[in-house]
């Protein structure tokens, strides 16, 4: 039996929920929502790997010393990942707008049928 932390479990669950939406849903917007949920899961996983019991945020003021703060690197990585996620989501949504303008539908099977 595998023992993992609740935070790891939650992030794995978010990734799987997002993957389920991508695999099963036919509407492109729903697939993009699934992609965003997956991204949230990955971000949560990174931040929770950097957490250390009983320590505070890595802002070294108000009596927080270097040995009382959590790992700053995963948080910096997630800061980057969130911004890139917003950018890619915007790109994908505008691609969806273009698709809708061409085919009049967002259903992937319909689009595949219409393309012939």
């Amino acid at each position: 039996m595998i023992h993992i932390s609740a935070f790891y479990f939650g992030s794995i669950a978010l990734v799987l929920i997002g993957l389920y939406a991508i695999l099963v849903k036919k509407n492109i917007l729903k697939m993009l929502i699934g992609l965003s949920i997956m991204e949230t899961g990955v971000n949560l996983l990174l931040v929770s790997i950097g957490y250390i019991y009983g320590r505070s945020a890595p802002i070294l003021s108000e009596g927080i010393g270097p040995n009382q703060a959590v790992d700053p690197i995963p948080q910096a990585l997630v800061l980057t990942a969130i911004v890139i996620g917003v950018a890619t989501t915007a790109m994908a949504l505008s691609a969806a707008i273009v698709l809708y303008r061409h085919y009049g539908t967002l259903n992937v099977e319909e689009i595949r049928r219409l393309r012939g």
Partner: protein
Amino acid sequence: MVSILKRSLAIITLLIIGYWLAQGLSGVPFGQDKMLVGQYYLNHVKQQTGAVNAVTAVVVNYRGFDTLGEVTVLFIASTGVGALLWGQRRKRTARTEGSIVLTTGTRLLAPFVILFGAYIFIHGHLTPGGGFPGGATIATAFLLLYMAFTVYEIPHRAFEKTEGIVGMGYVIVGLIGLAIGGYFLFDWIWQTWHLGTNNIGRLFSGGFIPVIYTIIGLKVGTELSGIIDNMLKEEVSE
């Protein structure tokens, strides 16, 4: 029938992937001290960068080149949105004004939302936040304006100029570092001029982190506003 088959196949795949992920992560202890490079950053962040917030010090100072690439990715994405949605005549086509709550609230709050965004990115080296959340906050002010008023449009020319100038400013700050200290994005304000050495934890410290974050905040704000503008306009056929 096909749909049920597809769904069960998907669920079986997900269970396999989930088991595999959980097995991999069970070897990573939660909440234990696993820091190697992170401890070095925490020990030296105040002397080396003058910033209190270790996360923004890592993002802007230690890995400034990476952040320049990130800003470039954001720029490419906003250009890509513009290119994908490019049309002959694009206009606002919303028919109804926002409700009175939305319009009045927007009139009152939009300047303060922009002010709060500026606060977030100017204090990036002291408090949680920085250029990216600050810029996103500024963009929400413009989103509010777009939602409340049917005819509102951002000042395109001024925004494009700001975007280009601040993007150039980032590279120029890096090149000044190259000229003074010998490598790109050298922190010349902190390491050569020693500005704000007695001031750590207050606004005027942190070397070039507030400067770079002001640049990033303006750039992200204008770019996200541009994306909002591109997405809310529709092609009109006349």
